[in-house]
């Protein structure tokens, strides 16, 4: 439905990374269904490969959110890029360390832990972007808000149940098999509603200023902060 609406409304090109992720998830699900029906012996190995492929492509959703929301705010975008690069670096470091430390990297326990770690890194990255958007009071459109909330919900719940699964072992699997698809369904509903039509992101009406202007702004802010602090300290001084 999400892809159908995207093609029908011509939104696919507006958010290419996000829709590539949705397409990747759909293709993966179809592939897994076919394998499950006709070649169940390869299902488990294929499951983790598809899972990691969608996880990597899922990083594109975060980059899409970063690109679309902060592109017109160079200052906030710089912060977001730092957070993003740090998260990406962490992804590679974790993957490298895991690969070197665990020769049998497709053992289920190790794979669950690896996915949990990578999802946690995505969660930190996404939380960083959301915090920057909140802190700098950046207005975001309905499409991007839905994208952020839907993917954020999926990532947050993934981190939590993967952590539980890793701690409890396979006894937690029965709960997981119900909770995971249900929560993903909620994310899909959020995306369907938010991306039903194209809502452009609100554009700021301010041109990018020179660096010296920023320094003047900081100087004035510091001066006023100093004045305010002096007033308060004078009031409370015994």
């Amino acid at each position, binding site marked *: 439905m999400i892809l159908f609406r995207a093609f029908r409304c011509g939104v696919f090109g507006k958010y290419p990374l996000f829709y590539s992720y949705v397409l990747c998830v759909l293709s993966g699900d179809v592939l897994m269904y076919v394998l499950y029906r006709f070649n169940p012996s390869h299902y488990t190995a294929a499951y983790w490969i598809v899972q990691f492929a969608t996880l990597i492509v899922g990083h594109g959703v975060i980059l899409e959110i970063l690109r679309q929301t902060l592109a017109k705010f160079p200052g906030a975008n710089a912060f977001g890029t730092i957070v993003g690069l740090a998260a990406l670096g962490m992804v590679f470091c974790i993957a490298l360390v895991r690969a070197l430390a665990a020769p049998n990297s497709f053992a289920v326990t190790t794979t669950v832990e690896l996915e949990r770690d990578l999802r946690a890194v995505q969660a930190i990255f996404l939380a960083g972007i*959301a915090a920057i958007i909140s802190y700098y009071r950046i*207005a975001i459109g309905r499409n991007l808000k839905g994208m952020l909330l839907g993917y954020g919900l999926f990532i947050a719940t993934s981190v939590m149940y993967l952590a*539980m699964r890793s701690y409890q072992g396979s006894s937690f699997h029965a709960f997981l098999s119900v909770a995971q698809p249900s929560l993903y369904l909620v994310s899909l509903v959020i995306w369907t509603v938010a991306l039903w039509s194209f809502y452009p992101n609100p554009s700021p*009406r301010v041109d990018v200023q020179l660096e010296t202007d920023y320094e003047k702004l900081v100087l004035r802010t510091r001066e006023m902060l100093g004045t305010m602090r002096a007033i308060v300290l004078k009031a409370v*001084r015994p």
Partner: protein
Amino acid sequence: MIQLILFLLIGAGLLLVLFALSRRAVPAERSATTLLEARQALDALQGMLPPSGALGRFLAEGDLAYITSCTPPNIQQLFMRERRRLAIFWAGQVHHSVRALRSFHLGQARFYAKLSLATEMELALSFTALLLICRALQIALYLGGLSPARPMLGRTARLVAKLCVVSATSFAFLESARGRGPNRERPEGNSALTATN
């Protein structure tokens, strides 16, 4: 177990941030397009500040001594009550001014291409510290009046102010590293920040 708690906290933290984001009202875009307008806005903010000696004048010992010496108890009670209300209102005004300044700064700063991470962190810390002091002042005034809370508040305020200076010094190395780049002009002084501490 610690690992489990850590990951649960990461997940819960993200959910919390998203919840806060979904609940916030979409801010109106600022129309200040030039530095001149930014200056005017800052000047307007400066006008919102209560006078520096206002609280001291509201709570002057002389006035209290006069009222307690020559008025009946019900007038004294009314005087004390109104004085406290005035002081709480004053602290609220300062709190409001600090928030307005922070809002203004963030609204402007997000557009600058070369935003300094160190400066922004230092300012965020200073804003938070000042807001906390104002809130503590309001709570202390509400609970017990200014006189018993004053020494405690004075110590807290000085401690927070010291913390701000220490933090600013900690971030200074980042600033100097940035400053080695070409065409970097540092503004003259940070006098207001240091003079008050």
